[in-house]
């Protein structure tokens, strides 16, 4: 951000836009943290609270839309101001999706509480902690318009993908070992996928910050390493074919 506009109310509106985005981001972050807590502690009440709170994030997204449209119509922003407004619209959509995924995690946590605990629950919170840190850092980067910090978040998405890969394989193994775990493990697999998707959205936000600051879209390819779309697991033939 550079100096102030001659028209002060213009600055007020742009500032308000950034404030709502930060609020949304803070809420989404808390939603994910609570959803993971609900999963770990098998706390269905907390999960229910996460599901209900999703409406707050949605309401803030509507506010961002309305304010952004007002600024576009009344101020006709150009250059860095225009990017700020366009980026605010897109970041709010990303955050809204993050909160949706957090609510999904909470829903599945409730479903899982109806069944006995599964072992690998530990690795999912670890991945959750990583993604939470990404959300926090990307929001800080947004508030400070710090493209370098945003790029550090962007780099971390590959790590999340790798954790997801290992959880995917781990859960498949459990399911093969014990068919009674299939229901819970499937929920857990979706939870892991939801958290991985939240990481993708945080990465989107990082790219948008880069665009807002530099005026150019990022040319490099994302550090992608989600290999699960290609994973095939079959019982190994040597391992006692007990049929």
């Amino acid at each position: 951000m550079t100096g102030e506009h001659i028209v002060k109310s213009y600055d007020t509106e742009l500032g308000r836009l950034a404030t709502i985005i930060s609020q949304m981001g803070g809420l989404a972050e808390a939603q994910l943290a609570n959803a993971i807590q609900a999963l770990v502690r098998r706390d269905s009440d907390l999960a229910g609270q996460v599901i209900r709170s999703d409406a707050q994030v949605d309401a803030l997204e509507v506010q961002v839309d309305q304010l952004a449209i007002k600024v576009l119509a009344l101020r006709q922003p150009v250059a860095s101001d225009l990017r700020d407004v366009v980026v605010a619209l897109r970041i709010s959509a990303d955050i809204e999706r993050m909160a949706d995924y957090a609510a999904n995690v909470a829903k599945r946590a409730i479903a899982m509480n109806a069944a006995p605990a599964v072992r690998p629950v530990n690795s999912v919170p670890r991945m959750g902690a990583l993604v939470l840190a990404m959300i926090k850092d990307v929001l800080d980067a947004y508030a400070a318009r710090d493209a370098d910090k945003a790029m550090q978040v962007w780099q971390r998405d590959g790590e999340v993908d790798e954790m997801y890969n290992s959880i995917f394989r781990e859960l498949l193994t459990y399911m093969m070992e014990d068919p009674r775990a299939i229901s819970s493990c499937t929920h857990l697999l979706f939870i892991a996928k939801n958290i991985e998707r939240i990481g993708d959205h945080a990465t989107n936000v990082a790219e948008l910050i880069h665009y807002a600051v530099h005026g150019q879209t990022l040319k490099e390819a994302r550090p992608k390493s989600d290999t699960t779309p290609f994973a095939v697991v079959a019982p190994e033939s040597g391992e006692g074919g007990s049929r």
Partner: protein
Amino acid sequence: MAAIAEMQSSAPATEYHAKHGDQGPVIEVRDFNLWYGAAQALHDITMTIERGLVTALIGPSGCGKSTLLRCLNRMNDLVDGLTIRGTMLLEGQDIYDARTDVIALRKRMGMVFQKPNPFPMSIYENVIYPLRVDGIRDRRILDETVERALRGAALWEEAKDRLNESALGLSGGQQQRLCIARAIAGDPEVLLMDEPCSALDPIATLKIEELIDKLSGQYTIIIVTHNMQQAARVSDNTAFMYLGRLIEYGETEQVFTTPRLQRTLDYVTGRFG
């Protein structure tokens, strides 16, 4: 201090020339300086105006954009105490050469001013005024010119049934389009427009903008405007001037989306001063 240093490096403008210089410029300005008495109004302006495109000159009041425009057809010649140094070429021909015929030069560059200035005569006579000056009397040529110029200026449908009525009876927007018709009647190469819409209402302004869009390609247009949105809408290239210097010159889209210099960014986003 940083701002002054920034202003003095007109690097983007130079880069722009390096990139576009070979596309056949209509006008070339090189190291052009101008003083009103002791006060220097233009500092080392170097720029090329590309053929068939619309070039907008923007900048705050007193930045020298109108002075620069008026120098192009030597409208400043009669100003007392004026000193110039540098070169301006129209199609490679030195505008300030002692042998240049100023009247002939101005025929090659039609000019439209801030306030519509129709002459107190009929619409018809206004349009053919440049031809009258040339002594053309052939009625067929005159009639054809009136229709061509009025059509060109998007005024034909409104004016064709009242060609012999006084031009002063037209609305402000129509008068401005009449002035554009008069400017193009002599078939100039370049149209100079000095804030052509500043005295018009928004709808008349849009009509002029539409007209500029229609005329581009056929004519090279240079427009001075205070309305940045207008510069963004109508021009292909934009030159940003400040305190008599050319700060940044580039494709309009670039200047308004990702200006290279902080001062340009501050101006186009309304943070100036």
